């Protein structure tokens, strides 16, 4: 019985410590974003890694998400004779909800995992210790460019996803199912307002921050995991954990951001 409480206490302390570490990590990294000197080239390199290299997968998934929305939306709306509202349904679903969430999930899988593994390998091969010993702040040198790049890339990728999704919906709803071309865009123009765009952008900012925060933090503290294991196994375990945690956090924060902005 005593052993049970010891384990429970140990687990609680571990998670409290981890939450504290993650909080301090975020604060230190964000502080470094605003601390000079400001170097552009590492940020551009990270935007390329997080943003540019994700463009194809975002266009692809965005297009097909829009197409399936077109298909489902047409089937549902036609029951009520409201096929003309397809453009509005597709655009609102994408801009307010699916665009930011699915983009974030795709970026987590593609770039978040890579960031976690990269930082984790830097930790286990003592590269981060080497930075510390050279009096170079790892938060400034490694993390700050990733945070800036994540916050810049995510809204842009989300916008691409939305545009491709709307086009995908158009191809299916108008091209394949012979819906009304004018009605598709007119209903979209009528229903989508600044508030919807704002909500989508706020979500993408939040998710960008979440992805970089959780993934880089997990890699940064790979040596402090409860079931500590160094080497490739430790990095792979922590990367999987980071992707799962980030994906769950995106859906949880999606609810809270939506409830605040609605």
């Amino acid at each position: 019985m005593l052993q049970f409480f010891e384990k429970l206490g140990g687990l609680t302390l571990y998670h409290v410590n981890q939450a504290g570490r993650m909080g301090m990590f975020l604060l230190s990294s964000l502080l470094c974003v605003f601390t000079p000197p400001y170097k552009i080239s590492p940020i551009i390199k990270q935007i390329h890694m997080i943003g540019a290299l994700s463009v194809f997968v975002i266009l692809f998934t965005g297009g097909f998400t829009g197409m399936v929305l077109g298909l489902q939306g047409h089937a549902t709306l036609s029951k009520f004779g409201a096929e003309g509202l397809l453009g509005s349904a597709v655009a609102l679903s994408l801009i307010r909800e699916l665009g930011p969430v699915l983009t974030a999930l795709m970026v987590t899988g593609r770039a978040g995992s890579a960031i976690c593994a990269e930082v984790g390998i830097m930790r286990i091969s003592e590269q981060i210790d080497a930075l510390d010993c050279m009096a170079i702040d790892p938060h400034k040198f490694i993390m700050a460019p990733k945070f800036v790049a994540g916050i810049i890339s995510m809204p842009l990728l989300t916008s691409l996803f939305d545009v491709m999704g709307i086009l995908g919906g158009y191809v299916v709803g108008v091209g394949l199912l012979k819906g009304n071309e004018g009605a598709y865009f007119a209903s979209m123009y009528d229903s989508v307002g600044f508030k919807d765009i704002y909500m989508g952008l706020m979500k993408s900012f939040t998710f960008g921050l979440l992805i970089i925060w959780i993934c880089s933090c997990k890699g940064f503290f790979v040596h402090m995991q409860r079931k500590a294991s160094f080497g490739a196994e430790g990095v792979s375990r922590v990367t999987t954990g980071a992707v799962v945690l980030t994906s769950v956090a995106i859906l949880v924060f999606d609810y809270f951001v939506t409830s605040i902005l609605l």
Partner: protein
Amino acid sequence: MNKVPIIQMVNVEKAFGTQKVLRGVNLTILEGKTTVIVGGSGQGKSVIIKHMLGLVEPDSGEILINGKDINRISKKELCDIRMQFGVLFQNAALFDSMTVFDNVALPLRERTALSESEIAEIVNDKLALMDVPGSNDKYPAQISGGMKKRVGLARALALNPKIVFFDEPTTGLDVAKSNEIYRVFFRSQAKLGYSSVIVSHDVPKIFKLADYVALLSEGVIQENLTPEEFQMSTNPVVRDYVKATMGTLYTSENVEEE
């Protein structure tokens, strides 16, 4: 004789989980001298270096660098102290996504306001001192283990540090490569005059470099003596270590000169 302490560890204790690694370490590193820390594997020699670097915090005790406890100073002060450090990690810890040149240039780019041409001059100087010719554009994965260590040492010396730490500088290298590392160590120390702390298993060869040898055993520094005194010590733990690693009595004079 110069006997100014540059690093002092006072009653340092450290446990990892239930395993107590350091049980009250007292060690003084003197300015301009080379102190070699020896001991069996897993005794915590690297942990001592990590304490001195401020990478690990002790459970109790003090680590004083130039009289300042590095665990009770601000981040800025710790940064200033670390500016005097150069570290050669066991696996060199080179940044694998950067070329050899960029690795050595990194501390200069990040910590100084030098122009690229001045940085290039310093980097080429350091790499020449380390005998690493024509590898500027190679990545760490493309060079040998011995070369990695030399590039690591070039990077450690880039800012002309006052104290250089070597964590097992010759582990994993053959005799010829080890001798190369010792040669560049001699040459660079003669030129730059830094104090050094070396953790090594390469006994008795490493004694040739040492001004002082400290034995870590059972979580404490058993002795910190000159190599000759160390070999003649009457401390039974030291005597056992000397016997186990060197066999019969060893003196530095009869080591074959390189």
